[in-house]
């Protein structure tokens, strides 16, 4: 028990320590998430052991419970049993003692009464004999015997328990009363008196001093020869009832003779008579004569012990069990059974030993006693033994010793245990059973309870273990994700460097004079692809940035429409190869300029369109955009686009302006710009509509094989859209394909909302015939035109075009003749249009022809061109070229004077420019008509050029809207340039006369989003490019703070090559010093710079001023590092409106450094080794922005 306890205690102790250990990290985990990782490791190893400890604890608790309940049970049982048994035992002992005491008392009584009777008989005999001392005659003798008989009878009758009283006289005469207890007969036995004649002699003998021998001899002889008579008596009265019968001497009873009182004192012994089956107690006492010298007679009294046996029986009947009395030697005197006490086998009958008793119990009890104690029984013979197994029962054995003088007795009582303890034992057993079963029940229930209770704990443990493992897994995942991000960031950085080289080299190639157009186009294409690749790398970098929450959105003005157009331009190239039409459909209420991160916005759409292109094999991709007016009451979210458009179209222009005005008043409110990217691709399963925006998730895993891609695009898109306060989702659409709808919250800049005042085309007499191949593009354009009050007609293929042309012009000509020709079956719709055309005064026909409508595979296109040329005078032709349209066609067009060409895709802005150009030209024409100047074909070219210039000029205006004066100023210059280059036959070359200002624009936008420059890059004039590329930084003054002489030298030469003036200093302190004192001339510098730029002339005298346009700042420098220097410079700028762009130069290539640079107030960031192109573009973008 002790070891067990200790074992349990050890377990508990272990558990407690376990628990403590475990609970410690739990507590800490909440508060110190930093140390979490270490703790996890620890906790996870603890996990298993704690699991076991729960098990052990459970076992321990169960064991404890079992032990406790077992103990309780045992104690309960024990105490109940012990006390019951004890009390019962004491009671039983008393009972047994009492029981045994009674027969012994009876015995005692019997003995007593026997001795009393004997004594009384003796006394009476003495009295009678002494009163008859003179027995002279025989008659006297008879008288004396009669007297004796009467006295004896009286005594005999008074004690009914007596068996017999005998008186034997000296002369051998015998008088005896005998009571046969069996048949309740009483007899008087006497010897024949005639034989005893020598009575006198007897007296003599009696008087003699030594009578013994004579007595004895005579007695023996006399007795043998004597004749005894037996006389039955009435047991009550003593009257003679029967005939006297002679019997053999001592036949029926034992007569106590002289031999039994040898020393003259009373003697006791247990005798056995032939006639009774019970032992007899006999006492003998001599009767002395008056002189007390001789014995005259011997009185003997016998008492049957039968009554003791009777009493025992009665007692035993009452209490069950067995009793017996034995003499000291072991002879049975009385038993409680009916078993015979005398052995019949021997003659004369003898007393039986107790061990030979016929009753089994008594025999076994006696045998057990004898075996246990042997002959040397304990002192006083008192034995009290419990639980003695006799036979198959247990008994109590008690013996008592009764030390009577000359007759010691031993009483034994054997009581079956069952009798006394039966109930108690049974109860005890039952109690034990009940207790055990009850405790078993309790243990079972307790165990179940413990199981249930600890189950909660173990569940918690399990959960905790799971949690720990999850946290572990999460930590690992995060770590791996971190590694991934790190890796991606590093990789993309590494990859970007060669990409930058590729792009730079392509730029050089583009600026090469000797490239043919085709080569130029190809190179431009390569450049575009490279930019796309670079963008992909940026995507990856973005994602890692976004994931680490480091993405910061720029907040700058940009022309949303132009960015999107550029995007569509770029993608259309890809789409045409795919036979997919790209359509841009922006509603008129879209603000032209918005504030936001243009690069990110473009990225969003680039990703979306890219995605669409990937999955669209044929059909169209439409990028729709409209503005949700914050003033309009209804939410447009669920409006179908058509409905929306129709609603829009109902609006009058005035109302739009009104709305615009309202919008300006609410300019602080961010506008909700809705966009849709609608394609006719394979579509996305509705169940994946949510998950496609997850990282690395693709709608169909097989698409990776088919289309490639990383599954990052949409994830970035969603992150960016959310970052801009918008939402994106996939919307159900009719027909095949996917419809992505998103909105962005962008704020419109304060003063430029009304910048784009497009001309009102209504009532200008414009008739537009759209002969476009793509259905959607045509539809969208014509809808827009109609909305703006321009009569529009459509044709989708060559035949339709010719028919419409014929109808149009023949009908027109016939209209002059008051009626239509019936030759042409005209559609009703067309009819109504024709009617409306007829109403127009002096209509201007604009025919937009898709080059794809011509049959380019054969030479038929020339004839078709000739056919169209017939209408040349009557209508303005706008040719929509493919990017891969061959030069022969372009030259042919040019030859014929078709100089109005635009590249695909054809969208609103291009249309506007065309129409504006046409209107302007018409106005010129009208003026010229007024001046009566003949029209020349050169004018056509002039018109065309002005159109293109308008377009580029618009770009400039849009990207730097505040600088209107510059736009106006540069306009004539551009025109002049274009006219001078008109002689060249190359249309594309003609198309873009690039001034250095536009070049700068392209760089500026290039820095923001490189794709947006593609439209310009494509049309980049090689010669102007070459010039501007070399001296792009002409006139800029740059302060270079760099301590390493090598880098200083290299950077200086680089910058000087670009035309900049460089002042190099060795550390940050010098840089700050160099800047000091220049603030006063700042304004002057700005003016002069502006002037210089406008006049495009280098004026060195202006540059003698110390101001700097830009600072290139190395980050790690002695004395004062770049960060400190920047802080100092920015501090000195506080209060003034100056902001010198500072570009960081650092060898650290990580984004955190970039963040640090930007944090201290630097504007941009260049990594070493310095990339020529990157530096150029960065510097340009910064100087451009500030000027």
């Amino acid at each position, binding site marked *: 028990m002790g070891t067990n306890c200790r074992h349990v205690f050890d377990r508990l102790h272990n558990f407690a320590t376990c628990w403590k250990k475990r609970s410690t990290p739990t507590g800490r985990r909440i508060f110190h998430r930093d140390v979490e990782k270490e703790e996890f490791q620890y906790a996870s190893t603890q996990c298993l052991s704690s699991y076991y400890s729960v098990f052990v604890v459970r076992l321990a608790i169960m064991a404890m419970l079992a032990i406790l309940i077992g103990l309780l049970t045992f104690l309960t049982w024990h105490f109940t049993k012990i006390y019951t048994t004890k009390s019962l035992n004491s009671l039983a002992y008393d009972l047994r003692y009492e029981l045994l005491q009674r027969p012994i008392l009876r015995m005692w009584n019997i003995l007593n009464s026997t001795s009393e009777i004997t004594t009384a008989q003796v006394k009476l005999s003495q009295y009678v004999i002494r009163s008859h001392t003179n027995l002279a005659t025989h008659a006297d003798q008879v008288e004396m015997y009669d007297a004796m008989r009467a006295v004896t009878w009286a005594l005999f009758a008074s004690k009914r328990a007596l068996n017999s009283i005998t008186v034997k006289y000296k002369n051998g005469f015998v008088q005896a009363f005998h009571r046969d207890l069996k048949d309740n007969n009483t007899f008087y036995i006497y010897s024949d008196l005639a034989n005893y004649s020598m009575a006198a002699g007897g007296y003599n003998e009696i008087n003699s001093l030594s009578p013994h021998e004579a007595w004895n001899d005579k007695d023996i002889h006399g007795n043998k020869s004597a004749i005894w008579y037996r006389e039955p008596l009435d047991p009550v009265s003593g009257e003679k009832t029967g005939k006297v019968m002679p019997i053999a001497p001592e036949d029926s009873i034992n007569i106590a003779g002289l031999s039994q009182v040898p020393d003259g004192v009373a003697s006791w012994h247990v005798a056995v008579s032939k006639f009774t089956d019970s032992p007899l107690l006999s006492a003998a006492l001599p009767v002395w004569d008056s002189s007390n010298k001789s014995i005259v007679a011997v009185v003997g009294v016998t008492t049957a012990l039968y009554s003791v046996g009777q009493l025992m029986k009665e007692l035993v009947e009452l209490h069950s069990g067995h009793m017996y009395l034995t003499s000291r030697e072991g002879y049975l005197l009385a038993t409680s059974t009916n078993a015979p006490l005398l052995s019949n086998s021997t003659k004369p009958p003898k007393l039986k030993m107790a061990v030979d008793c016929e009753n089994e119990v008594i025999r076994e009890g006696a045998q057990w006693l004898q075996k246990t104690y042997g002959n040397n029984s304990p002192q006083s013979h008192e034995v009290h033994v419990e639980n003695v197994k006799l036979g198959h029962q247990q008994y109590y054995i008690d013996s008592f010793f009764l030390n009577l003088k000359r007759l010691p007795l031993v009483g034994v009582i054997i009581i079956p245990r069952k009798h006394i303890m039966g109930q108690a034992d049974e109860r005890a057993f039952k109690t034990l059973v009940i207790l055990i079963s009850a405790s078993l029940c309790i243990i079972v229930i307790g165990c179940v309870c413990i199981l249930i209770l600890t189950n909660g704990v173990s569940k918690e443990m399990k959960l905790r273990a799971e949690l720990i493992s999850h946290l572990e897994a999460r930590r690992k995942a995060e770590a791996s994700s971190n590694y991934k991000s790190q890796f991606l960031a590093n990789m993309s950085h590494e990859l970007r460097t060669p990409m930058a080289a590729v792009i730079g080299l392509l730029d050089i190639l583009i600026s090469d004079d000797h490239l043919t157009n085709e080569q130029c186009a190809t190179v431009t294409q390569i450049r575009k692809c490279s930019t796309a690749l670079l963008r992909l790398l940026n995507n990856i970098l973005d994602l890692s940035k976004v994931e680490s929450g480091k993405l910061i959105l720029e907040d700058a003005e940009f022309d949303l429409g132009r960015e999107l157009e550029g995007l569509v331009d770029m993608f259309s190239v890809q789409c045409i190869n795919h036979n997919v039409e790209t359509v841009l459909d922006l509603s008129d209420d879209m603000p032209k300029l918005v504030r936001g991160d243009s690069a990110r916005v473009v990225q969003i759409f680039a990703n979306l369109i890219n995605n669409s292109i990937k999955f669209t094999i044929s059909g169209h991709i439409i990028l729709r955009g409209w503005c949700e007016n914050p003033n309009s009451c209804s939410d447009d979210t669920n409006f179908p686009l058509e409905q929306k458009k129709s609603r829009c179209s109902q609006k009058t222009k005035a109302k739009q302006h009104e709305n615009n005005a309202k919008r300006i008043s609410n300019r602080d409110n961010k506008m909700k710009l809705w966009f849709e990217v609608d394609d006719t691709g394979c579509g996305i399963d509705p169940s994946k509509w949510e998950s496609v925006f997850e990282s690395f998730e693709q709608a169909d895993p097989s698409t990776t094989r088919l289309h490639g891609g990383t599954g990052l695009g949409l994830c970035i898109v969603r992150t960016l859209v959310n970052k801009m306060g918008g939402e994106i989702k996939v919307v159900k659409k009719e027909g095949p394909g996917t419809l992505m709808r998103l909105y962005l919250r962008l704020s419109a800049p304060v003063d430029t909302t009304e910048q784009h005042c497009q001309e009102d085309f209504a009532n200008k007499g414009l008739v537009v015939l759209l002969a476009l191949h793509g259905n959607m593009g045509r539809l969208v354009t014509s809808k827009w035109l109609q909305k703006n009050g321009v009569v529009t007609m459509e044709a989708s293929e060559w035949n339709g075009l010719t028919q419409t042309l014929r109808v149009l012009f023949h009908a027109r000509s016939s209209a002059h003749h008051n009626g239509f020709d019936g030759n042409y079956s005209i559609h009703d719709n067309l009819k109504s249009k024709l009617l409306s055309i007829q109403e127009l005064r002096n209509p201007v026909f604009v025919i937009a022809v898709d080059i794809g409508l011509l049959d380019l595979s054969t030479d038929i296109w020339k004839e078709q061109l000739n056919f169209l040329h017939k209408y040349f005078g009557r209508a303005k032709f706008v040719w929509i070229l493919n990017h891969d349209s061959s030069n022969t066609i372009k030259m042919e067009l040019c030859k014929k004077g078709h100089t109005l060409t635009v590249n695909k895709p054809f969208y609103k802005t291009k249309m506007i420019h065309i129409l504006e150009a046409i209107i302007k030209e018409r106005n010129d024409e009208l003026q010229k008509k007024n001046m009566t100047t003949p029209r020349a074909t050169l004018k056509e070219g002039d018109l065309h050029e002005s159109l293109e210039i308008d377009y580029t000029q618009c770009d400039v205006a849009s990207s730097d809207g505040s600088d209107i004066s510059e736009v106006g100023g540069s306009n004539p210059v551009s025109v002049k340039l274009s006219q001078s280059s008109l002689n060249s036959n190359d249309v594309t070359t003609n198309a873009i006369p690039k001034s250095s200002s536009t070049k700068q624009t392209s760089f500026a936008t290039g820095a923001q989003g490189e794709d947006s420059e593609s439209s310009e890059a494509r049309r980049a004039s090689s010669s102007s490019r070459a010039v501007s590329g070399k001296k792009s930084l002409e006139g800029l003054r740059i302060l270079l703070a760099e301590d*390493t*002489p*090598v880098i200083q*030298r*290299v950077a200086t*030469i*680089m910058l000087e090559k670009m035309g900049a003036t460089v002042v190099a200093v060795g550390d940050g302190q010098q840089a700050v010093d160099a800047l000091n004192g220049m603030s006063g001339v700042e304004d002057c510098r700005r003016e002069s710079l502006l002037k210089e730029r406008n006049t495009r002339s280098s004026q060195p005298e202006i540059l003698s001023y110390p101001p700097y346009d830009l600072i290139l700042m190395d980050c790690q420098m002695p004395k004062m590092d770049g960060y400190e220097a920047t802080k100092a410079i920015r501090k000195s700028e506080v209060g003034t409106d100056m902001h010198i762009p500072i570009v960081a130069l650092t060898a650290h290539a990580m984004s955190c450094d970039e963040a640090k640079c930007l944090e201290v107030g630097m504007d941009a960031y260049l990594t070493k*080794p310095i990339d*020529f192109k990157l530096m150029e573009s960065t510097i340009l973008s910064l100087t451009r922005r500030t000027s």
Partner: protein
Amino acid sequence: MDGIVELQRQLIDYTASLFHEGFLDEQFNQLQQLEDENNPGFVVEVVTLFFEDADRLLNELTKALGQPSVDFKSLDAHVHQLKGSSSSIGAHRIHRVCISFRNSCEEQNVEGCLKNLQQVKHEYSLVKDRLETLFRMEQQILNAGGSVRR
């Protein structure tokens, strides 16, 4: 004339081998591109500057590492400078060793620093040797009346 052509070919081969063996990278090309009639001998000038700078820095480094208690911060700054200038002239191998040198500095590993210093010195002497050879060859060509094609 054949001699010049031969020399030019040798020069090209030698330059190519330098690139191939990783002594130089594109930055050197950029450097060469920067050289024009306005600043003749630019490459030589810059490289000489680099040599001076590197000599000074290597001395500093040796001295710093010879101290009983090494000031890793200044060590790191020196290595950084060396890294910057070496990357600017396109001495690729020195640049690489500098990166590992800086790692050693961050770990404050004197053993590693010493090892890296030896390596840098070794690489530096190699590059110096190579570049001097290169310039000698160029000079030969120029002296012979040929032009160094860039």
